[in-house]
């Protein structure tokens, strides 16, 4: 068990600056998820922590030790790879025992550790088999088992669930969570799937273009995104964006655009007063939109034309056109709407987001 500190970490591959000034402190026993689109530097960061990539500049500390120059074997970490990376010529037992053998553990200790890990993962029956005889889910369990038996200071996960089908992925997600709760080993988990990030992480690090965009607990990212990228990346379906003009009229601040005219609540108005006369990006989460009823005022609602209806069961997603913009509204499953219907959508005025058009930062 140990904390991991990443300080001013940079990685350059020839012309590409893959990781830029990443700073991160991962506490002991914490489960931190690095999430971002492909090419954002999350995997490179993880591989630098593992020692599989050299560091261009900066420091990585595991425990209280700077590990910059240490080979992977001396960092006391375990890693689970996307393609499992099981040794094809070894049985499941030998796969799990390999790391312990390399470290000179005696036979009985190896046997008891492998048995314990196999029990946790429910693969006792498969110990004698070869990896090719296993299903995808079982292989992933073996890969997890190989990491667990070592009792490392830190677990590193590199998109471990990407090769599994959707149902199995959810099941394994829960299992990884349980294993972490049980063992309490510090974990760094890389994924491009924001749902995985939100469900697994104690804290989530959102990255883009080699830069950390925001670090926070899952709900913090959802409720208070630091910039437009995080706002759009976290949450499913993604946040709706529209460029609006800020105007001061009738003693209030208004966000206006073709088809939209929203009166800002006092608290928001204070923050946006300086943007009056200019344009900003408005963000509304689909789940904060609902069908307007008679009691909704015109200040917090707007007209929309239904273009596509996606019935998910627990909710209905309406793809609607609002002036020149398309938006998604997640509404109650009881809503009866047809394509081309014209309806009025109401929004929650306390849950509006505004972003600077240039810096993309939240206002």
């Amino acid at each position, binding site marked *: 068990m140990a904390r991991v500190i990443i300080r001013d970490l940079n990685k350059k591959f020839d012309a590409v600056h893959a990781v830029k000034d990443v700073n991160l402190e991962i506490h002991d026993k914490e489960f931190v998820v690095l999430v971002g689109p492909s090419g954002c530097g999350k995997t490179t960061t993880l591989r630098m922590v593992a020692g599989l990539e050299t560091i261009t500049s900066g420091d990585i500390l595991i425990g209280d030790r700077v590990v910059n120059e240490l080979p992977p074997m001396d960092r006391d970490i375990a890693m689970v790879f996307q393609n499992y*990376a099981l040794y094809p010529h070894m049985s499941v037992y030998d796969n799990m025992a390999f790391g312990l053998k*390399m470290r000179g553990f005696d036979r009985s200790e190896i046997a008891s550790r492998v048995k314990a890990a196999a029990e946790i993962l429910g693969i006792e029956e498969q110990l004698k088999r070869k990896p090719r005889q296993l299903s995808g889910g079982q292989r992933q369990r073996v890969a997890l088992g190989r990491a667990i038996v070592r009792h490392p200071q830190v677990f590193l996960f590199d998109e471990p669930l990407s090769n599994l089908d959707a149902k199995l992925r959810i099941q394994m997600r829960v299992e990884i969570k349980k294993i972490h709760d049980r063992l309490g080993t510090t974990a760094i988990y890389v994924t491009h799937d924001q749902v995985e990030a939100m469900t697994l992480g104690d804290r989530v690090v959102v990255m883009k273009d080699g830069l950390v965009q925001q670090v926070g607990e899952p709900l913090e990212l959802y409720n208070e995104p630091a910039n437009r990228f995080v706002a759009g990346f976290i949450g499913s379906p993604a946040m709706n964006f529209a460029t609006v003009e800020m105007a001061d009229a009738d003693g209030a601040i208004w966000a206006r655009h073709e088809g939209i005219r929203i009166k800002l609540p006092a608290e928001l108005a204070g923050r946006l007063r300086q943007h009056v006369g200019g344009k900003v990006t408005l963000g509304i989460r689909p789940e904060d939109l609902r069908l307007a009823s008679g009691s909704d005022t015109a200040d917090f609602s707007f007209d929309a034309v239904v273009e596509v209806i996606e019935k998910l069961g627990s909710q209905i997603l309406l793809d609607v056109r609002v002036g020149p913009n398309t938006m998604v509204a997640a509404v109650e499953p009881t809503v009866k709407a047809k394509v081309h219907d014209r309806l009025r959508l109401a929004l929650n005025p306390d849950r509006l987001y505004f972003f600077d058009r240039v810096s993309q930062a939240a206002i």
Partner: protein
Amino acid sequence: MIEGARWRRWIFFNLPLALFVIGLLFPFYWMMVTTVRPDAELYRPWMAPNYTPFWTLNPTLDHIRYLLNKTLFNRWMLNTFFISVLATVISLFCGLLAGYALSRLKFPFAGSLGTGIFITYLVPQTLLFIPLADIIRNFRLGDTPWALVLTYPTFLIPFCTWLLMGYFKAIPRELEECARIDGATRWQAMVYIVFPVAVPGILSAGIFAFTLSWNEFIYALVFLSSPEQKTVSVGITSELVRGDVFYWGSLMAGALLGSVPVALIYSFFVEYYVAGITGSVKG
């Protein structure tokens, strides 16, 4: 299947396949028949009424007896075996390390080095033996098995390196990375993980190298002169063709017995060999 499919299958698949197999096996059949054919039949003119080129009614072991007792055939087999095994081991060892380094390690000019090695493989032996003869003479290795043990790797190492390079590239890098995180050094990861996974590739490189050395002719012809040093391929052609007299029966017996070891090796390792050539690694 429809009615016409059966004859179509015969015309386009079974018949060509049969012709192909017959074409390939016919020389072996010819070797066998000639080996056991008595001299009287061998030298019978083709228009003679009792001429039977494709079979014999009076099989004899005389030619084999002559080959084994009156020539140095056993010695040649031993020589060939010794040289082939040694040349194969040397080439495989160098090819393994070179192939691994070229496919896995990052160092300057790795790419051009790989191409360079391949190009050396393209230089024909019929040109290379001239400078090599000079080297062999300078090192006083002429007419010893070492002349071949040390010159065969000149074409076997590039071959093994190239074949194994391709094979190593097909092995996922993560396997090795995982082993290194698991506590293995780079060397241990190579020996415990990469090489065992590459066994089909290594075996097929070995089989190929062995076959190439076993069948090699020109270096053996040039670098060896005394009969007791010769290899099978050179021995039977030089000692059983005297002037314009061909000892056809014994020649064919030598060719037949000479191809047995290679045939045996192939039949034992055929599965690995196919896997090695098609380069399949199952995770």
